[in-house]
C-alpha cells in the first residue's frame, strides 16, 4: 500500500460522513416532532397544577417552538455545523454540558465492557474453533448462546442481588457498590467498584457475540489453502493459529467489536437504570420522555457521530489489514 492510496481512501471515507450526518440530523429532527406531546405541557403541568393558555404560549415562545418548523430546522442544522447543540429545553443548560456530565459514565462502562469481552471472547472463540464439535466447543457455545439469550437487565438485577445476599450471609451486613458515580480520575478504586458490575453484565452479552464471530471466522480461515500449506511446511500449530489463522480471522471480529462499542455509548438504558448510573442512555430516555427536542437531537447526533467515526476507524483498519479492500 502506498501513502497516496491510503490518503485517497481516507479522504473518500471522510467525505461520506457529511451526507450521513445530514441524513441522521434530518431524520431525528422530524421524527421527534411526530411524537405526540409538548414539553411546555409537561413543564407546566407535570405537578398536577393548572396553567393558562397564555402561560403555554409564553413557554412556546421562550423555547422557540412558535417559529415555523423549517426555521427551527435550519437553526438546528446551522448550530450543528458550528458544533453548537443549543440549550436543553428542560434544564436550560447547554446540551454540550448535559452530555459532557454523563458521557464519562457511559464511556467508562463501554471501555471496561469491551476489555472484558475481548479478554473472554477471543481465546474462547479460538479454542472453540480449534476443538470443533468437542465437549469444550459445546460448553463454549452454550456459554455464548446463554449470553446472547439472557437479557442484560436480568443479569444485572441477579448479580446485584447476589452481591447483597452473599455479603449479608458471609459478613453479616449487605453490601453493594456505591450508587453515586465518581470519575475514574477523582477516585479510581471507587469508580472501578461502581462500574465493574455493570461492565461485567454488559461484557458477558458482548463477549458472547464476539465469541461466536471469532469461532465462525476461525473455522473459515482454518480451512483456507494457506493454512493447509503452512501445516504441510511443518510449522508448529501455535504459529499457524496465532500468526496465520487469528490475524486473518480478526477482520469480521474487529467490525463487531467496533459496532458493539459504539452501541454501548448510548444503548445501555436498562443497565444504567438497574445500577442507577447516570449515563447517556438514561439521559436520552429522559430527554425523549420530556419531549426535550434539543437535548434528544444532541444525544442522537453524538451517537450517530460515534457510530460513523467507529466505522471509519474499522474501515481504515480493514484497509490496513487487507490490501484488497483499499484497491477495490
Amino acid at each position: 500500500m502506498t501513502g497516496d492510496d491510503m490518503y485517497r481512501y481516507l479522504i473518500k471515507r471522510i467525505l461520506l460522513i457529511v451526507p450521513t450526518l445530514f441524513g441522521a440530523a434530518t431524520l431525528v429532527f422530524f421524527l421527534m416532532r411526530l411524537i405526540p406531546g409538548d414539553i411546555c405541557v409537561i413543564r407546566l403541568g407535570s405537578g398536577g397544577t393548572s396553567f393558562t393558555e397564555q402561560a403555554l404560549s409564553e413557554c412556546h415562545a421562550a423555547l422557540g417552538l412558535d417559529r415555523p418548523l423549517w426555521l427551527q430546522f435550519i437553526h438546528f442544522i446551522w448550530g450543528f455545523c458550528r458544533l453548537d447543540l443549543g440549550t436543553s429545553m428542560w434544564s436550560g443548560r447547554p446540551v454540550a454540558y448535559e452530555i459532557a456530565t454523563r458521557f464519562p459514565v457511559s464511556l467508562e462502562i463501554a471501555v471496561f465492557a469491551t476489555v472484558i469481552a475481548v479478554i473472554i471472547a477471543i481465546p474462547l472463540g479460538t479454542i472453540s474453533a480449534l476443538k470443533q464439535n468437542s465437549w469444550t466447543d459445546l460448553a463454549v457455545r452454550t456459554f455464548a448462546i446463554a449470553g446472547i439469550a439472557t437479557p442484560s437487565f436480568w443479569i444485572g438485577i441477579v448479580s446485584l442481588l447476589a452481591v447483597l445476599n452473599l455479603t449479608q450471609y458471609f459478613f453479616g451486613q449487605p453490601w453493594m457498590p456505591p450508587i453515586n458515580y465518581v470519575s475514574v480520575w477523582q477516585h479510581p478504586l471507587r469508580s472501578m467498584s461502581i462500574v465493574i458490575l455493570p461492565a461485567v453484565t454488559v461484557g458477558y452479552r458482548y463477549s458472547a457475540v464476539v465469541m461466536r464471530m471469532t469461532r465462525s471466522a476461525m473455522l473459515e480461515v482454518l480451512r483456507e489453502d494457506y493454512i493447509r500449506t503452512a501445516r504441510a511446511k511443518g510449522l508448529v500449530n501455535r504459529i499457524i493459529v496465532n500468526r496465520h489463522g487469528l490475524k486473518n480471522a480478526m477482520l469480521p471480529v474487529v467490525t463487531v467489536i467496533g459496532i458493539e462499542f459504539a452501541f454501548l455509548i448510548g444503548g445501555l438504558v436498562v443497565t444504567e437504570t438497574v445500577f442507577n448510573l447516570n449515563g447517556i442512555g438514561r439521559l436520552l430516555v429522559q430527554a425523549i420522555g420530556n419531549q426535550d427536542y434539543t437535548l434528544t437531537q444532541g444525544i442522537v447526533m453524538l451517537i450517530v457521530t460515534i457510530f460513523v467515526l467507529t466505522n471509519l476507524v474499522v474501515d481504515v483498519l480493514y484497509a490496513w489489514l487487507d490490501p484488497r479492500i483499499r484497491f477495490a
Partner: protein
Amino acid sequence: MDLQDPPGRQFHNGDPLTAADVAASLNEIAFPPKGVLSPRSDNFMMVKDITAPDPGTVVIHLKFATTAFLPALADPFNWIYEKKILDTDPHWYEQHIMGSGPFKFAGYQIGQSIKGVRNPDYYHKGLPYLDGFVGIFAPKQAVQLDAIRADRAATEFRGYPPSAIDQLKEQLDGQIKVQTSDWNCTLGAWINHKKKPFDDVRVRRALTLAIDRWGSAPGLSKIAVMHTVGSIVFPGSPLAPSKAQLETLAGFWPGINKSRAEARRLLKEAGAEGLSFELLNRNVDQPYKYLGTWLVDQWSKIGLHVTQRVVPTGPWFAALRSGDFTVGTGGSCHGIVNPPIDVQTWLPRSVSSANFGYYDDPKEIDLYDKMLHETDPTKQRADMWNFVKWVLDDQAHFIETMWWYRIVPLRSYVNGWKIGPSHYLNQDLSTIWLSPPHCGKCTAEPAPAL
C-alpha cells in the same frame, strides 16, 4: 404577618431577610409579571394585594374571607427570594438557588445527587443537627430499596407499598423503622364528556358503579400505594365526608352486586351494553399501572370491553390536554391539605385547565363558590358535601378511587423526622439527628433547639 421574632433572619449570602423580600416573592407568585409563569397563582385567588409597610411586617388584604387562605400561604412551594434580585431579574430563580433555611446549597450533579451543608446562621439556634446531607437520585424502586438495605441511603421520603416494606424489614431485622401517614394524593379516571356515549350521565354513572372500592382496597393497598377509599376531599380533613355519606355516592355503596346490577341497568337504558373503549394510562409503576389494570378488571364485571394504552408521561399529558382519549387516569397531589383549593382541579374546563373531563357545568361552579366563601366550619362542610355529591354522584364527572398512603422506611439510627401527609412537606431535615456511631463523636441525643 410579623417577621420580627425571631430576629436575625438572613439569606445564605448574608443579606437580611426582610418583609420586603417576602412581599416581593409572594407578589410574584400571586400576580406574576408578564413573562413569568406562576402555576400556583390560583392558590391566591382570594388575595387583593400584598405590601410591606416596614421591614418587619407584611400585610395581605383579601378580596373575601376564606379558610383556604392560610393553608395556601403555608404551601412549601412559596419560596422567598431577595427583592433586589427579583427586581433586576424575575427569572433569576429558574437557574439559581437561594434560601434562608437550615442547609446551604453545596452542589448538584445532574441526575446523580444534590448536596447541602449546615447553615451556621440558621435562625433556629442549635439547628440543624446534621453537618450536611447528600440526596441521591434513583428513579427505580428496586434500586432505592437495595440502597437502603446496603446502607448506601438512610431513607427515602416518598413512600413504598407494604410488600416492599415487609421485605425490607425481613432483610434488615431491627435495623429499620417505619413511619406511616395518609397521603394528600389521589388518583382516579377522567371521563371525556366530548366522546359519545360518555356525554350521557347514565353511562358515566355505570362506570363508577362498577368499581368495588371497599372490597378491593385491602388487597390493592398491599401492593400499591393506593389505600383509603374517599371522595375528592382529603380523607383526614374536617371537610371530608363521613363514611355514611360516602356510602350514598354511586360506586361507594356497601353492596357491590346491587351497584353492578344498577350499572348494567343504566348501560342497557342508555343503549351502551357491552361498550368497548380504551383507557389512557401513564407508564409509571406506582400506582398508575396498578390502577389501570384494576379498573379494566372492574369494568369487565359489567360486560365492558376495555383495553389499556400505557404511554410515557409526555404523550399521556399531551393526550389528556388535547382531549385525544376516552377515559384516562388522573387525579391530584398537593403539599398542604387545603381542600377548598385542592378541589379546584375538578372545576369545569372553563375554570380549571387541570380538568380533563371537558365539560361545562355552571351549577358546579355555583356550588364551589358557595363553599369557598363560607367561613362557618359546619356550613362549609355541608357545602363541600353538596359539591362532592354533585361531581361524583349526580353528574359522575370523575371516577374517584382511593387516596394514597405513605409508608416511609428509615434506618434505625435516623431520628427526629416526622412524617406528614405530603412528600413535599417536612423536607428541611433540620430536626434530624443520628444515633452513635453514625453521628461521629456524639454520645447521646442532641440538646433541644431553642
